[in-house]
């Protein structure tokens, strides 16, 4: 049914806000089990966890952790935006809020980067 190449109708702020929210949500849902698994290692004694945490000093892992942080920040900010417009009936604010959400997420991530590296 779709006859539109590239679907330019999507190129509007709120659609991208939606996509970012969805992708971050799905990635979070994929990552969270692993995160939990890692923490679960603690059962087997401090050594394992420490060993694992040492491994997270690895830049690659650090990058992944940063990514996770960003995801959480993005999803959180976007989610709050959605909750505001659905529950509080905010309307013309939507675009500003989308921008705000992305901005907040980015700021959070930068903060993390600054701290972590």
């Amino acid at each position, binding site marked *: 049914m779709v006859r539109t190449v590239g679907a330019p109708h999507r190129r509007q702020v709120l659609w991208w806000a939606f996509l970012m929210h969805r992708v971050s949500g*799905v990635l979070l849902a994929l990552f*969270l089990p692993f995160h*939990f*698994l*890692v923490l679960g290692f603690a*059962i087997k004694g*401090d050594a394992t966890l420490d060993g694992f945490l040492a491994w*997270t000093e690895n830049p690659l892992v650090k990058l992944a952790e940063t990514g996770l942080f960003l995801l959480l920040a993005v999803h959180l900010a976007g989610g709050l935006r959605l909750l505001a417009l659905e529950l509080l009936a905010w309307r013309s604010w939507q675009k500003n809020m989308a921008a705000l959400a992305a901005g907040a997420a980015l700021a959070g991530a930068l903060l*993390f980067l600054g701290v972590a590296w």
Partner: protein
Amino acid sequence: MNARREAYLYAAQRLTALIMAPLVIGHLITIIIAIQGGLSAEEILSRTSGNIFWAAFYGLFVLAAGIHAALGLRMVAAEWLGFRGPLANWTVAAVGLLLILLGFRAVGAVI
């Protein structure tokens, strides 16, 4: 009835989001603080072990995240994979349950 079910599921997803929002903010702040001091197992455990507050904090988060993610994935599966109906519902429910179990195991480990 269908409408009521969907309304409840919707409400559950938004409610869990509302619950998680402050928890995540709290968690993120803790991480930043923790990282500044360098992360170690000892530190994490000394902070959390036997602390009912943190147990409730993470317990609630795990529960909410499980429900929230399952409901979210249900929507994504329906729209992007065309995976709908009872089987889809059971599958995402299982995913949610798995998440909660893993989460509780993790919480149990660090408390």
